[in-house]
């Protein structure tokens, strides 16, 4: 009996790991683990120093190089650490992002980064925050915690900023500040 449980656990782990790697290589299409969903032990699959990307309709949406990726819940969520990556925007711009940690849902292109996030657009504009989350489909980027956006001679700060990935229009909530005409460091 005990051997059977061990074998089941190992099999489940292998299946999850295969699923994660399949997701890494094939995007958001995650192979069915086999239909039998009664695996009780939650197996954590972890990969290190890898590059992950998501594509949709042949277009790369984002690509992250992570120090560590782990799926703690059997493949629904992927947690990252030491993230550096790029988000490819519809307007052709590219946003470089970095964060100590983050997560992404396997079924979907949304992600969130936290622990001190920095994002910079290739065409100009930076955002720093304690946490950001991105709803890819709606292109809603929500940044919370000491948020600061800088673009040329304009700077915005607040407890929360809701914007799009273009960082052009936004709503600042809590201790909101918008300032134009100064010299602001975009780093």
């Amino acid at each position, binding site marked *: 009996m005990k051997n059977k449980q061990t074998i089941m656990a190992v099999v489940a782990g292998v299946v999850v790991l295969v699923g994660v790697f399949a997701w890494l290589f094939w995007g958001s299409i995650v192979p069915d683990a086999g239909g039998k969903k009664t695996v009780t032990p939650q197996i954590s699959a972890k990969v290190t120093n890898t590059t992950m990307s998501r594509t949709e309709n042949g277009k790369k949406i984002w690509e992250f190089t992570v120090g560590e990726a782990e799926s703690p819940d059997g493949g629904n969520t992927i947690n990252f650490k030491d993230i550096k990556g790029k988000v490819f925007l519809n307007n052709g711009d590219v946003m470089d992002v970095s964060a100590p940690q983050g997560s992404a849902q396997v079924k979907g292109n949304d992600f969130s980064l936290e622990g001190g996030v920095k994002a910079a657009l290739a065409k100009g504009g930076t955002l720093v925050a304690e946490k950001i989350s991105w709803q890819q489909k709606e292109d809603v980027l929500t940044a919370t915690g000491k948020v600061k956006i800088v*673009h040329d001679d304009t700077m915005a700060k607040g407890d929360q900023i809701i914007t799009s990935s273009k960082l052009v229009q936004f*709503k*600042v909530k*809590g201790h*909101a*500040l918008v*300032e*134009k*005409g100064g010299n602001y460091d975009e780093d």
Partner: protein
Amino acid sequence: MMKIKIHTSVLALSVALTLLAGTAILEAKDAPFSVHADEIDYDMQSGAGTASGKTTIFQDGRTTVAGGGGNFNSKDKSAHLRGGIVSDKDDEHLRSSELIMHNENYMSAVGNANITKGDKTLVANQVDYHKDSNFMETIGSNARLTSTDGSWLNAAKITYSMDSGVANATGGVTLASPPRKLTGSGDTAVYETKSGGHIDLIGNAHATQDGNSVSGNRLRVYNTNSHTEAVGNVKIVYYPKPQQPKTTAVAMQNGKGAGKVDKAAKTGAKTHGTAKAEVIA
């Protein structure tokens, strides 16, 4: 030569306008334009924004607070703020119901506009300030310039050019300076705040100090040497000092030519043939 003590409160009033000239509604072109609020919606491309809740705008050392938020544009530095406006810069203090910053060179304090600079205050329903031409004007039917010494000037409209130092008050001008026991009135008034300064009361001009009065089509009251010139249909009523026997003097000036009111006026004699009277205090 008749001497009448008509001290001028005009000095205080004209200085008020001079000080208001510095009303630092002025905004420096290169100074950052900063908006603080509870919540801000902002478009970085257009520079347009909407601020909600208590809103504060900083620019060029000026702090403007609005209780009810407002709209702004950081590119042209315009704004329309609402609700209990309080704006301060240096010793200038502005209060109004709304503040419209049309651009960095032109702004309007609207609704119970009250601008204090130093010890002088200009009050009107609306005060417009044009920085590019250094020009201020009140809008509405009531304008009032006051000083902390109690002096005041009322008119329907008061304008002031800071470049020329000339202020114009039009429409039922009245003025008073309680410390100098002076009152005056006219259809219009022109203040020359530079070069020693004086005030011209024009049209139904009248000035009274300590019981002595002078009327005419035009009165010029000097700030520095305390004398008054009256031109056209001049009437002077003079009450000697208490230690002297009380005598009323009336001088009526009509006709062509020019001359000065002399002691004949003290006797109540009417003089003719002069159109100008000079009254030395």
